[in-house]
């Protein structure tokens, strides 16, 4: 997207990416222990309004994945790339797996968050890298 609104951020989301970049990714937890991702004013599971930022577990496990060969225009130069849903415990997160051959991604792969950059748009992307070792 290129328009005058380019500099306008999405409050809650961009701040979360900033936090993830500084190694301080978090999720929102309600008094009943439900996790969710911002921006939120109520817990989507139970409607509780008292949401607290809690540090996201450092690693997650790939639960399902796909290698996309036909992307949207915003990812034209990135394809083929692997997208996965990783389970971080209190929340699941959808992200792009970077730093590994997409064809080698498997369920159960242990990953950590990495804010990557699109090769097409230079925009920030929520990414995962395999935990080494």
């Amino acid at each position: 997207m290129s328009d005058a609104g380019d500099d306008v951020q999405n409050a809650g989301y961009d701040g979360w990416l900033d936090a993830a970049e500084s190694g301080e990714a978090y999720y929102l937890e309600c008094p009943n222990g439900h996790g969710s991702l911002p921006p939120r004013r109520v817990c989507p599971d139970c409607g509780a309004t008292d949401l607290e930022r809690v540090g996201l577990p450092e690693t997650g496990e790939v639960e399902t994945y796909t290698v996309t060969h036909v992307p949207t225009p915003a990812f034209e130069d990135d394809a083929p790339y692997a997208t996965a849903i990783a389970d971080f415990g209190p929340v699941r997160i959808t992200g792009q797996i970077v730093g590994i051959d997409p064809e080698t991604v498997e369920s159960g792969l242990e990953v950590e968050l990495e804010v990557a950059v699109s090769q097409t748009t230079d925009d920030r992307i929520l990414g995962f890298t395999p935990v080494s070792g």
Partner: protein
Amino acid sequence: MSEVRIAGTGLTPFGNVPERTGRDLFAQASAAAFEDSGVPRDDVEAVFYGNFMGELAEHQGHQGPLMAEAAGVRAPATRYESACASSGAAIRDAVVRIRNGETDVALVGGAERMTNLGTAGATEALAIAADDLWEVRAGMTFPGAYALMAQAYFSEYGGGREELAHVAVKNHENALTNEKAQYQSAITVEDVLEAPQVSSPLGLYDSCPISDGAAAIVLTSETYAEEHDLDAPVAITGSGQGGDRMALHDREYLARSPAAREAGEEAYADAGIDATDVDLAEVHDCFTIAEVLALEALDIEPIGEGISAARDGRTTADGETPINLSGGLKAKGHPVGATGASQIAEVATLLSGEHPNSEYVAEATTGVAHNAGGTVASATVHVLEEVGRP
């Protein structure tokens, strides 16, 4: 409670006609529906119209009045947007309105113009049915989302690409006699397995095409049908709607569709039937895996067993419960906003004996239409029954 009768149905051919406007497509479908129904346009009291990507494809919002005008109807008109379940949602509201006695005659339906966007543009437009911040910005496409569900299904319950290929083969086979279908060509399991990958494990033939088209239906109250001696033997006897969290990763199960189950249970209870009464169904097979998830949500197949239904012949034209005798979204095409209404039109004609594939379901009295939006954050299910002339 007033019964809701299907007085007439109309479909455009589904396919690749990038130059045709949405209003022209809906004008054609609605003209066919009026002709089929014998209901004069002047009797229509409300228009319920489904459309998903009109702003992106045609730079056109506020499509309700535009489409009423295109149909030659002077009546209040509302556009429904519920991603790929847009016209299912439109029909459900029309059914509710007719049942509560507020409306006697409604024009319902939907249209979508997509192919003018090209493959990349249509892929981008379809992606807006997902959570923009937490899914689309990470690169998830619409086929990608169903691919994530397919992979999750394989891990949880087994099965693989070959079982899915049988769904595509079946639906192409069913579309051979459907002159409105986008693809009227037989394919083989090998064709499906060898086709280029779109988003693994889904390939080109696991995916429905990008389509232009429209569908329209004239619905009336039982009383109106009686008074006007309409030839309207099929009634909508059950209606249900379900909802779920927007993003796939926020659902309890990655390989199930609780919103569709909820919609199905509501529609079955409304009609006073259960899954064993269903003689045939049109389900939302935007991807081969989607048909599997739909069958399980509708209780036509047990959880974890739907993947073998097409391969083992349980859902083929001569099987126990034929699924997608029209060819489904897969072969008939998927002009998003038209799909839910087109499914109802197909079930109605299958039951009334006017469909080219009616011969496979000659004894059938009960059919189901299942319409899903996004990764099934929205779903509608309708039960249709052949009840005889009003």
